[in-house]
């Protein structure tokens, strides 16, 4: 069953099409990701779905309720974790949760129990009675995520849930989000510009760029579309010439380059490394290092949009570091 159904949704700000005719469905108990660079239209899409922004055209339903005609019913079934802070920092953490619970008409005994549960889940039990203005960024984020789920909505919207968090806390958040999905049977839709986040959490991912969905599938299916592994060569010398030579190899499917790196898409990459090294030696290509990896979602993103998702933020080394961190379970 589709919990969220979006058809031709469009939002214009003046002449700018922030969201351009997008359509997708989210199934019950799915974690669905909207992945794209900053300014791609993710947050605008979310704001329309949570009834804070009226679409220019198109339609959408959340749990069967129309986002234009039946706002209140939509609001009844959703929980939202906003990208920007939305806590009252003059109140304590507990009071923020209590405020929220009353707004959702929970009776006193249920409220008390639920607040305790949520505080435990986001590990803020011992900080519950200090004013939020004295919380760290990570604590605030955790409180907001806890608050978004405390009224047990059937659909939760998470807009950049881990933005600005340190890697350890981010990892923690991912665990919460997964727990929610498996234990509470909650449908989640999240936006992110962190590739690893989408890859790790989402059942299906939609790439969004310039307000349009350019690809939509499971992370694995998207990666398979790349057709092979990626061998990265760090090169000393003239990149342009070397690229030309490498393109001449029959089993190399694609060649791309940035900085002093050349990336080759190759099937069964692990069996080809020695051949490449030999080829390089023969043709005078000075390789200083070789790296083999399975294609990442980022590679897929580049394929579809012609650019990296956060050129301004992440370098190649950063990405490797994060990937390494993920494989070793969050420890550096």
């Amino acid at each position, binding site marked *: 069953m589709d919990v969220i159904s979006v058809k031709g949704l469009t939002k214009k700000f003046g002449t700018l099409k922030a969201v351009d005719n997008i359509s997708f469905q989210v199934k019950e108990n799915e974690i669905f990701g909207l992945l794209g660079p900053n300014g791609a239209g993710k947050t605008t899409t979310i*704001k329309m779905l*949570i*009834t*804070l*922004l009226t679409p220019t055209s198109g339609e959408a339903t959340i749990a069967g309720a129309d986002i234009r005609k039946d706002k*209140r*019913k939509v*609001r*009844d079934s*959703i929980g*939202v974790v*906003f990208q*920007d*802070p*939305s*806590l*009252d*920092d*003059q*109140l304590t953490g507990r*009071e923020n949760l209590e*405020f*929220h619970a*009353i*707004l*959702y*008409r929970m009776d006193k005994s249920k409220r008390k129990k639920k607040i305790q549960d949520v505080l435990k889940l986001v590990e803020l039990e011992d900080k519950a009675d200090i*004013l939020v203005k004295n919380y760290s960024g990570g604590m605030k984020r955790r409180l907001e995520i806890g*608050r978004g789920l405390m009224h047990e909505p059937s659909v939760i919207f998470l807009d950049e849930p881990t933005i600005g968090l340190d890697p350890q806390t981010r990892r923690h958040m991912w665990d919460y989000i997964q727990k929610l999905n498996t234990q509470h049977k909650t449908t989640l839709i999240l936006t992110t510009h962190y590739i690893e986040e989408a890859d790790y959490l989402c059942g299906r991912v939609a790439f969004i760029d310039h307000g349009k969905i350019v690809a939509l599938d499971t992370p694995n299916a998207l990666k398979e579309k790349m057709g092979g592994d990626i061998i990265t060569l760090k090169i000393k010398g003239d990149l342009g010439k070397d690229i030309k030579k490498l393109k001449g190899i029959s089993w190399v499917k694609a060649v791309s380059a940035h900085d002093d790196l050349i990336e080759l898409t190759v099937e069964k990459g692990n069996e080809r490394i020695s051949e490449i090294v030999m080829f390089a030696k023969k043709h005078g290509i000075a390789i200083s290092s070789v790296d083999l990896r399975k294609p990442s979602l980022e590679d897929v993103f580049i394929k579809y949009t012609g650019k990296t998702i956060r050129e301004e933020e992440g370098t190649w080394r950063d990405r490797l570091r994060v990937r390494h961190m993920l494989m070793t379970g969050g420890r550096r």
Partner: protein
Amino acid sequence: MMDTNAIYVLWLREMKRFTRAKSRVIGILVMPLFFLLGLGLGLGGLVSHVGGESYLQFIVPGIIGMSLMSASIASGFSVIWDREFGFLKEIMVTPNSMASIAVGRMLGGTTTAMISATMVTIVSVLVGFQIHYSIMILLAIVFMVLIAMTFISLGLILASMITDLQGFGMITNFFTMPLLFLSNGLFPLSQFPKIVQYISYFNPLGYGIDGIRGTLGGVSAFPLALDLAAMVIVVVAMASFATYAFSKSEAGV
């Protein structure tokens, strides 16, 4: 459609914030107390009588009115503040009507304004203000609540239209000073040209202060029934418009 849970929780929040923000409490009280002591006692020594009563007796209702006005308009600040800090979004995605959120804010603002007005009244009595008929205090409270609701509504209306804090501060000053001067609150307008007096007939603060003066001090320019009728009409109109304007405003997305 009214959601009592939302009304209650917004009122409760205002109370919690009020008791915690010591500087705000002091800020709301300092100005009226300066006026009371500076004008009431200082200038009162020079001005012997205003319409047959002492200057202190004349000015206290004006200062109570002033404290209500400034405390009430200030509650519009919290709307802009909430929008600025994203908290308004959190309220707006909950299944509650914007009208009940507006009403909750109005009740919270009225309560805090009444707390400061009560304190000003107590200090006034301590420095020599005489309450003529103690039973009339109840009616005086009605007038005070009506003044508070008028200016909370004004604050909400302005906050729904103006999104930046500085602009809001400028505009409220633009409203409050003329309203105060044209209210008969601090000095009688009988010395002024007729045209000024006509203009003052459109000033709700004037009727409110006259009502407080009539109930607490026993002397008023208009019959109390007229003061009351004028204030009720103003409050109904302003509060309805404020609720409407707030419902139509955006969360700052």
